[in-house]
């Protein structure tokens, strides 16, 4: 702490960022809470409905629960792809002798492409008629009979919309984990190997505990990012077929901006806020406890 700070100077530095943050983030959260007790279509007067939006949402809205389930599935697939993929590639990368920089760059490339472009791209990748990339590869390796309209089948569509999201950011998480892995002291691992520990043991008992703090951060980042998932399902399938790829975020968006039911959409928003706080709480609980054990 600076000895010569004054109350005023603290305020001068603190107020501008806090004001922006308040206007852009905190105020809207409060407003959502407020709006969620009203029925409002944007052009007619607002009417107070008490907890009715919440009651409908939690007890009577099957789409809402479907979307909630889908969101969990979406997050799970994204996490497996992003964290699992990132960990594997980062580990492989540490074994590589040459070309690490090139691989890192290429691997990160998808992150710079806008989601609209990615949606256009994957529409063609998954397509059946005309035959898209995946179906062509399947035909090429003799699996023509499993060719599929991946975005039309209710059982594959959720995975199909999650994969692009996972794909696009694996590179980012890989970089983070790779940097952490490099920081693991080589002596520790060498020693373990010489003691006859298998690769898996070395990994699990030496490397992983070492990178655990980074792993927690990465998990939180990936989870909150996946919970924010919106663009790709919205653009690729618009939640369909049926509600098979509807997420809470896309459902909230449609309720607000297609059905112009701003009150109900706000109730969904409030639920999403709570869901995210709970998710982050759970991550800390699980990963911290493991660290203590």
């Amino acid at each position, binding site marked *: 702490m600076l000895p010569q700070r004054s109350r005023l100077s603290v305020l001068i530095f603190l107020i501008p960022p806090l004001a922006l943050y308040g206007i852009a983030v905190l105020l809207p959260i409060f407003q959502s809470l407020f709006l969620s007790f009203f029925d409002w279509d944007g052009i007619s007067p607002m009417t107070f409905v008490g907890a009715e939006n919440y009651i409908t949402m939690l007890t009577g809205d099957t789409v809402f629960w479907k979307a909630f389930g889908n969101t969990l599935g979406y997050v799970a697939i994204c996490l497996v792809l992003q964290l699992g993929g990132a960990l594997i590639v980062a580990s492989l990368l540490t074994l590589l002798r040459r070309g690490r920089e090139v691989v890192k760059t290429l691997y990160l490339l998808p992150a710079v492409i806008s989601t609209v472009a990615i949606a256009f791209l994957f529409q063609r990748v998954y397509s059946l*008629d005309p035959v898209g990339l995946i179906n062509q590869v399947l035909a090429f390796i003799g699996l023509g009979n499993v060719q599929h309209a991946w975005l039309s089948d*209710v059982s594959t569509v959720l995975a199909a919309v999650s994969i692009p999201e996972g794909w696009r950011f694996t590179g980012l998480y890989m970089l983070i984990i790779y940097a952490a892995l490099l920081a693991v002291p080589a002596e520790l691992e060498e020693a373990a190997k010489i003691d006859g520990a298998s690769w898996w043991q070395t990994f699990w008992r030496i490397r992983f505990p070492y990178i655990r703090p980074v792993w927690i951060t990465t998990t939180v980042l990936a989870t909150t990012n996946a919970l924010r998932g919106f663009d790709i399902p919205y653009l690729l399938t618009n939640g369909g077929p049926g509600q098979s790829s509807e997420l809470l975020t896309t459902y909230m968006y449609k309720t607000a901006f297609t*059905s112009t039911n701003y009150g109900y959409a706000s109730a969904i928003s409030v639920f999403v806020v709570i869901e995210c706080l709970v998710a982050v709480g759970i991550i800390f609980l699980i990963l911290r406890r493991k660290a203590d054990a």
Partner: protein
Amino acid sequence: MKHRKLFAAAATTAALALLLTGCGAGGSSGSADPTNIHPTGDIKPREISWLLSRPADGGVITAMKQIADEYAKDHPGFSLNLISTPDRPSYIQKYETLAAANQLPELFDTDATPFAQKLAKQGKMMDATALLKDLGVYDDYRPAALNYQRFDDGSLYMVPFEFQLEFFWYNKALFQQAGVQIPTSLDDIPAMCTKLRAAGITPIALDGQDQWPLERYMSYYPFRTAGPDYIQSLKKGDAKLSDSTGTAAVNWLSTLGTAGCFQDGFSSTGYSDAQASFTSGKAAVYNIGTWELGSLATDKLDPAIRDNIDYFTLPVTKGSVTDANEYVSPSGIGMAVNSKTYDPLVRDFLSFALKRYPAVYAATGALSPTTNVSTTIPANATPLYQRAVDQANTVGDKTAMPWDTQLDPTSNTRLQQELTLLLQGETKPDEFISTMDGVIGENGPKAFK
């Protein structure tokens, strides 16, 4: 203590903002009288904007640009700013949010939706009957074109700029190959599909991604068996899909699904892919309107199949209450005139533009919403073009309204989703009916209060 004061300040601001929100939004902000089509004052040229949802290089925009340029010559300082969002769902969202923000421009496109009706009731749109009559052009319009724009109570707030007929285009060679005839009844279609499938042909190409094409199929059967009034009572919750009309329609749709009428993976097929499937000779039938005449009835078509293309109109059913010459004949999304910004200039420009428009538009090869001009057939047209254009003069009085312009948005979104599931065989007809009756029962009556 510092932060507590700070937080108190933030909370006060928040409360204040909320208060403002509560009071400010939604009220009718002193709009002008929507029937006062003769505003007083001078014509002061300025830029006026038209928020629209039409293809950027299409006939309407081309014609209106030309007309605006002509008008600007005599009225220096005038310009028409065309803001087009062709993608319809994005457009609707944009226009509804602008309306909520009370920031609609002078002219804006809308279908006769429940949302538009609310705007009309709040006096935010000019009365189009009064306007067109005053300009002396009302009687030039095809009655069907005006009727398409009307709200349920018969009032008219939107001006049509197009007139389209929706046909079932088909490939004669593929029909012959599979040994099928043009269906005379809607009930013939499933059998037709089965035969085409058996011959290894995609029966019907469908753009499932954009939802509205499939929703058309939902509207066909009730239009034949119960007439155009059915959807008007259904959307308010007065009629149910569980009654005989609705059940018959849903069962028919379900048989379309089981007969494999649409290509595999139709729900993720886009507009261009569906059309390509038909124009490349893969699919036998394609249901689309005359706005595609340029692609389907000109030499742009692959010579190999050009002469095999023909069309038939919506088949009837046994005991059909509507005639064979009555089907979907939309006059496109209509243009509404914002009453808040309506002034002598807007009136003068509309007077000039609406009188000039039919001739300019018909010259582009399109069907005018009026009857006082004849369409110029393009030089590269096939004989089908002329036939399709002439067909417009034989259209009956009743028109099959697309359901996406009729239902409230929540029911509409849900219907589109459930239709895909029904056609894919994921839900049974009775589940479909009970789901949709529930959703419409909950949202419809509220929307049409």
